[in-house]
């Protein structure tokens, strides 16, 4: 990871794409809203029915199009509305991290976590921590374009 200059974490506002499943994590985000707990505005949400729908291509495309980070938030193990889509999602995420590393993309830039429909507080925490860790990494500069 030598190709990056030391970022100015004060002025850098990362662009992050967040894939949220409809039943748990999206509802968790709504809970955070209902309790009106502020969190950084850097994550733009794409709603999918299930985290199992998140094609690794989506993540690669987001990085290619200039995202500094990507988040995939799923139902907790055993809670998936579609029984096991979240297991597929976490398996794919693990493999994806290896691919990202090949491109020089730090694994901290692609965050996977579980947020239940009741966990507004956890949603805020995960978003806040991810935004801050990606701020610390600075803007993503790709070594080679992601095909």
């Amino acid at each position, binding site marked *: 990871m030598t190709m990056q200059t030391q970022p100015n974490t004060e002025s850098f506002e990362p*662009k992050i*794409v967040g894939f949220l499943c*409809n039943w748990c994590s*999206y*509802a968790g*985000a*709504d809970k*955070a*809203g*209902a309790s*009106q*707990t*502020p*969190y950084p*505005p850097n994550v*733009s*949400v*794409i*709603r*999918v*029915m*299930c985290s*199992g*729908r*998140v*094609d*690794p*291509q*989506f993540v690669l*495309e*987001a990085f290619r*199009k*200039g*995202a500094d980070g990507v988040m995939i938030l799923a139902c907790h193990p055993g809670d998936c*509305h*579609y*029984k*096991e*889509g979240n297991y*597929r999602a976490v398996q*794919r995420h693990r493999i994806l991290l290896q691919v990202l590393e090949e491109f020089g993309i730090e694994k901290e830039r692609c965050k996977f976590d579980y947020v239940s429909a009741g966990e507004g507080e956890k949603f*805020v925490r995960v978003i806040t921590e991810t935004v801050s860790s990606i701020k610390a990494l600075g803007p993503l500069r790709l070594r080679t374009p992601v095909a």
Partner: protein
Amino acid sequence: MKIGLYICTCGTNISDKVDSEKLIAEVTSQFPDSYGATVEFICSAEGKSFFSEHLVANRPDRVVVAACSPREYESTFMQLVSEAGINPYFLQFVNIREQVAWVTPDPEQATRKATIAIRSAMARVLHQQPLEKTEMEASPDVLVIGAGPAGLQSALFLAEAGRKVVLVEKAPVIGGMPVLFEELFPAMECGPCLLEPVEAEVLHGDHAHNIELLLQSEIAEVTGYYGNFNVKIQQTPRYVDPMCIGCGECVEACPASTTNKFNCDMDQKKAIAIPFLGALPNLPYIDWASCLRSKGEDCQLCSDACPVPGAVCFDDKERVLDRNVGAIIVAVGSQLYDCRKLGNLGYGEVPDVYTSLEFERIAAANGPTAGEIKTSAGRAPESMAIVHCVGSLDPAHQPHCSGICCEYAFKFNRIVEHKLPGTKVYHLYKELVVAGKSDFPMLDHARKNPDASFIRFGNIAEIKVSSSDGKQAIEYRQADGQVGKLTTDMVVLCPAMVGSESSAKLASILDLSRNQAGFFDEMNGRLHAAQSTVKGIYLAGSCQAPMDIRGASTQAMAAAGYVLSGLADGKKLTIEPIVAKVDEDRCSGCRICGVVCPYKAISFDPDKHVSSVNELICHGCGTCVAACPAGAIQGNHFTNDQIFAEIEAILQ
């Protein structure tokens, strides 16, 4: 393409943070032909009528509504869009309240975040396709597998509602396990007294004409899906016609005997026999393997003794029946964990060590000893050990608690106290469980029995039962470490309940999954415990989890309720359009989609070498779409194009 954008102020909930006019100006400049309107409380009656009229007046090709969470009002607005003559799947709903205005204190940042969200919705909506709900004919008839309490109750409930029910039972008799029990907890009522009226209703009641009862029958094959299952049923011959009057003359005359499985093989029965006294239907059956005719002999003593000509029919044949049903209720019950797997307890080796089921029969008036509790030597036991938690709560065997064993153990205590006063009863247990509103008195009563003692063990492997002078010597170590020794005349083991052999067979025929104890998995263990993992197949009774008659009966009603609400007579099944679709030209036939589908909605056509999705079974999760290496599967309303458009617009 003309996009109509509607932004709700939500009073000031949104407008305090999001400057909708600035936002509209910026976004519409990027999408030619689009227009934007700010609406105060778009969910109010006035807001909705403004929205509807505005749509009709402006006729946009696509619609974007930015307001609260789509989890609240998306379906309402889809309906309004549809009423305005626009396909409802041309709407995209954007959450700028819960996920923007309420969590972003700085108005400039909030307006920025809302702009990105709406811009990506505008980009996405251009790629959205018109989708329609479709309908399919469905059979309202139901197959119920198993005629124990759960199967009987659900069959009867459905028949009362006018449904045609095919009730399949592998035994020659109905009633399941508890009809064999003399008494039932918690009220000590007799098993047949509780169940015989239900059986009689199924056989001869006002709605019996709606139930086709197939005894000695098993499911051989099931094809199709929810709404249209084709079922092949295999029925072994009974050799006795229903014209039989149940007098039992044939049984008297029969010269051949075999072990009696209705008495757990503890005694003998004739080759032609009524399963047990009081069995319904009151018809004998011939156990062919033990009948002399199967051995080539020309015996016809039963037929000769029969007062009804033709009632005994030796030429009865195995039958294969085909039935078409819309739904299936699986109610095949459970069985006891094999006590031989705990060799230290002496079952099968040490005399007078019985399973709880065997003891139920010993205590039953129609059992092998006519209800007399006695040892194999014919003496009334002066002492008895009842071992709870056999193979339960034990990682080496089954980790679960069956929840009913303690109660029947205390029932045994009461039966023994009543029939053989003064008999010592030792309860050896790991945990005592008597949950429920009417169940504690069972434990309370057992504790008050002056001849009962309670011994808590820590590990069942530290109990050793051996034969000693016609009695059982029991060595044990208590949970507190103390060791002790007992000598008893009888031992009753209360094993864990586990999935039955029938359920293992059915699981493969119906493609149902089971847990490690052999119980069927539910769609959701809390909200949909009566629904299996396959659409249109429901679970009732102890094949789903250990349960008592009350639980089985309640679940039977739940399963029947699913059928009644999902498959109404004359109603077509609605197929939701958010499903996956395979492009046959691109499909390479790798079948990865079939592996990842949690609903087994994907089948493979070996002739065309392609997979296809059954839209009725598909839930639209999109897991197969993401998994397809050929990109041959489209996830309706969540297509790659739509999601890529969102990604691009967010990051532009």
